[in-house]
């Protein structure tokens, strides 16, 4: 083997590598183990490696002695340069770059190579390199290369640690740069910013003891050195210069220590960072950050004012624009000061940026400050975050916690405040953080939103009133009438309480008009309408407004009155009856005895039809005092609902009648209501029958009507009268029923049912009213057309 002449850099590098491979310190390296890894890291084809080995004479010796190793390395460099492998090339090629090794371990070496050879090379090599346990090998090398003895020793210490580090990928390049930097200062290699982590670690290890001392010195210049160390300052000679300056300014030891600390921090950081999350701060890193934080602000719970932070981060030599962006990202609460978490995030971002990572547009989750309660920063979190993480801590999602366990460690102090704002999950709604948070809260219960119309009985009838009251209290549905008229679907969906519907239905039944009025008046807001209508509209069931027969004058008929006025109420009663009729079958036992009177009242009215109705309704009626109405309504609703929903069947019967009544878009609500009711009842009855839910078979007429209404959901006008009749019947029948049942439970159930019925009824009423509205509009249009036709003549 001819003599091997190596340049100084090569010499150093090779010696480092050799030391790295020479774990046994036997001055000869076996062909396996590190050497192999090294060669593999050289990324040379196997045959080349074999050739190298042969050339260097290792094969002869069976191992790699130092010289052989050196030769091998040189050959590797030759091979990597693309030159043919020749023994002569060892010495002939003068400008050979240092061999590059790319493997994890080799990273270090490569890194080492870089520093040794040229900075530029290094930059390239390790930026892409995974942060392998570089520290180790490099530590060694670093130690070798560096003048400081400490590094060396510490390197040894570090070495065992380095393997751990290798898996660390946290900002992959970052460890390297750090190391490099560290080495730099430690070794005073102004030319080699990237000397590699090794030296850093070692010094750090050593420096640990002296860290305290170092810290003091460190504090003086720590920010810069660490930053530079960590960040790939190495890239820029100026950086290294800076580093050199620092060492210059600081004792070597101090530098070493600082470097060491940085290294250690890096090491730690590297080690703990997970592969997956490049933004995650490892424990070591965090520890380092915390230490740095302490240098600026001893109180971990305190803030770093913006100016101090600015100085600190300016030392990192990042462009102001980038620093500004980093600040934007990390100042979570936009208060112009950095908490520990924010500081760590900012520092981490700086490091990452230094290592070549592009800054994210939004703060990564792992960097979001978990802290929420910033006692000091009163307005923390109040400020809208522009980028998804507004300051409102309230929103901080818990997601952050898992991502920053290390933060948690240091956090306890910071998290004194009770509120633990969780980091935002990258939500970009800035000022809406609070709102977002709120939005997280379960939205209002739709049920509550859907206030079924309180079955307001329009008719002042006592029974109705009672029912209404009950209903109102019980349910929001206000469609005493509407239930009948209102579309079942609406009601049914909204009807939490069947009773309400029932109620409504009952109401309609009772009043016929009153309920219908309610329906008509407020088709949309079932409940509201019901109430309102109740007050004024006698013709509640009018919703559907089948062109009612003679307009029902008094909307304010009380149930009782309505009952009395069976004729007038015939419509209603018819409806009611229908409802009632329908009700019994579908309506579950009416709860309120109070309601019962209603139904009962109705019952008698429509004895014939209602009887059957009542027969069924009794079950229902007992539950509801307003059974009478309800039954009708139920019948209606049931009929109508059946179409849409079966559960509301009870109400439908009543609703149907109502619906039917409402369908006709007669202007005379009252009349219509009544007629509708009648029709409804009739319709509902049939509808019920059709549905099968209306056991009540109100008089066949009502039943038929019911069916119609159900089918059409718009009872014909002619059914109106029938409905009223049915309603009347229902009304009559109703009263009798409630009395029978006076149990609370049943009463409740009845009331529920009533409410539901009312709802249904109101819904139907609503629909009917809508229909009426349509009709009216059509009429209006026709009238307008006529007017238009007439107009030309006017010009004449």
């Amino acid at each position: 083997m001819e003599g091997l002449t190596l340049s100084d850099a090569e010499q150093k590098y090779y010696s480092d590598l050799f030391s790295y491979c020479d774990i046994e310190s036997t001055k000869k390296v076996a062909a396996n183990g590190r050497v192999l890894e090294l060669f593999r890291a050289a990324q040379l084809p196997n045959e080349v490696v074999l050739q190298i080995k042969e050339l260097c004479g290792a094969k002869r010796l069976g191992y790699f002695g130092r010289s052989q190793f050196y030769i091998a390395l040189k050959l590797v460099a030759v091979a990597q340069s693309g030159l043919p492998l020749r023994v002569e090339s060892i010495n002939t090629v003068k400008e050979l770059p240092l061999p590059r090794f790319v493997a994890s371990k080799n990273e270090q070496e490569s890194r080492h190579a870089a520093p040794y050879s040229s900075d530029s090379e290094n930059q390239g090599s390790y930026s892409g390199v995974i942060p392998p346990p570089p520290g180790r090998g490099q530590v060694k090398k670093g130690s070798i290369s560096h003048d400081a003895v400490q590094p060396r020793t510490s390197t040894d210490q570090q070495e065992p640690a380095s393997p751990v580090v290798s898996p660390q990928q946290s900002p992959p390049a970052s460890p390297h740069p750090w190391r490099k930097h560290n080495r730099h200062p430690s070794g005073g290699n102004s030319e080699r910013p990237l000397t590699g982590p090794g030296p850093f670690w070692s010094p750090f290890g050593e420096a640990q003891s002296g860290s305290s001392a170092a810290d003091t010195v460190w504090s003086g210049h720590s920010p810069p050195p660490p930053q530079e160390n960590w960040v790939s300052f190495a890239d820029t000679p100026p950086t290294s210069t800076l580093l050199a300056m620092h060492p210059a300014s600081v004792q070597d030891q101090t530098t070493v220590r600082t470097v060491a600390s940085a290294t250690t921090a890096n090491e730690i950081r590297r080690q703990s960072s997970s592969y997956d999350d490049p933004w995650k701060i490892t424990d070591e890193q965090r520890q380092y950050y915390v230490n740095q934080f302490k240098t600026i602000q001893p109180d971990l719970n305190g803030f770093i004012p913006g100016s101090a932070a600015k100085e600190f981060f300016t030392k990192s030599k990042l462009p102001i624009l980038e620093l500004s962006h980093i600040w934007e990202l990390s100042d979570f609460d936009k208060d112009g000061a950095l908490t520990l978490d924010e500081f760590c995030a900012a520092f981490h971002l700086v490091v990452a940026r230094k290592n070549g990572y592009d800054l994210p547009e939004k703060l990564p989750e792992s960097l979001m400050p978990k802290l929420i309660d910033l006692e000091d920063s009163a307005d923390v979190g109040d400020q809208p975050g522009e980028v998804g993480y507004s300051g409102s801590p309230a929103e901080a999602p818990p997601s952050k916690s898992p991502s920053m366990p290390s933060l948690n460690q240091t956090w306890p102090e910071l998290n004194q405040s009770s509120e633990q704002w969780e980091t935002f999950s990258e939500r970009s709604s800035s000022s809406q953080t609070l709102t977002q948070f709120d939005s997280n809260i379960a939205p209002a219960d739709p049920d509550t939103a859907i206030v079924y119309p309180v079955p307001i009985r329009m008719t002042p009838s006592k029974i109705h009133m009672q029912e209404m009251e009950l209903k109102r209290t019980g349910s929001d549905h206000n469609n005493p009438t509407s239930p009948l008229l209102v579309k079942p679907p609406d009601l049914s969906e909204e009807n939490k309480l069947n009773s309400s519907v029932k109620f409504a239905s009952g109401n309609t039944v009772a009043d016929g008009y009153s309920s219908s009025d309610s329906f008509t008046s407020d088709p949309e807001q079932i409940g509201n309408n019901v109430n309102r209508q109740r007050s004024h509209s006698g013709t509640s069931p009018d919703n559907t407004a089948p062109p009612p027969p003679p307009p029902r004058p008094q909307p304010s008929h009380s149930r009782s009155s309505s009952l009395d006025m069976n004729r007038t109420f015939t419509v209603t009663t018819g409806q009611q009856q229908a409802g009632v009729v329908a009700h019994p079958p579908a309506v579950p036992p009416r709860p309120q005895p109070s309601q019962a009177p209603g139904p009962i009242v109705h019952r008698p009215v429509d004895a014939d039809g209602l009887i059957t109705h009542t027969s069924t309704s009794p079950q229902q009626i007992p539950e509801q005092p307003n059974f009478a109405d309800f039954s009708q309504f139920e019948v209606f609703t049931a009929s109508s609902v059946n179409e849409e929903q079966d559960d509301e069947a009870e109400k439908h019967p009543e609703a149907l009648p109502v619906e039917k009544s409402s369908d006709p878009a007669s202007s005379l609500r009252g009349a219509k209501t009544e007629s509708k009711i009648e029709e409804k009842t009739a319709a509902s009855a049939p509808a019920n029958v059709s549905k099968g839910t209306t056991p009540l078979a109100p008089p066949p007429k009502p039943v038929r009507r019911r069916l119609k209404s159900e089918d059409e959901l718009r009872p014909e006008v002619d059914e109106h009268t029938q409905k009223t009749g049915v309603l009347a019947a229902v009304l009559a029948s109703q009263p009798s029923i409630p009395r029978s049942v006076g149990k609370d439970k049943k009463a409740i159930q009845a009331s529920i049912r009533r409410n539901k019925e009312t709802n249904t009824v109101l819904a139907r009423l609503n629909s009917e009213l809508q229909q009426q509205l349509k009709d009216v509009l059509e009429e209006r249009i026709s009238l307008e057309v006529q007017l238009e036709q007439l107009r030309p003549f006017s010009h004449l």
Partner: protein
Amino acid sequence: MAVCIAVIAKENYPLYIRSVPTENELKFHYMVHTSLDVVDEKISALGKALVDQRELYLGLLYPTEDHKVYGYVTNSKVKFVMVVDASNTALRDNEIRSMFRKLHNSYTDVMCNPFYNPGDRIHSRAFDNMVTSMMIQVC
């Protein structure tokens, strides 16, 4: 939705100006520049200190047939000028106010950044994003 948003410093030089790219932006710049006179007129007319939020919002500065210019001034005499399309009738005064409020908040955040020197051009990405959200979406 604005077509042009500008932040003018106290000394009446622009800190940030951004327009919808499709138009002849110079025209907007000119409009903003001329509207500064109106702004000065309005703020000088107010003898008392501008402490009231309402006074911060100057309202419509100058309407043209195509555009309307709205103004807003902060307590530190930093002016926000917004040019909106006159055809956008749906834009109500309240909306303009809210847009200015958002602008003001974002500007405050930019100010809080220690790396920002008052008087520099505003390069904040967050500010840019916010302004983008307010600009007319021109496909």
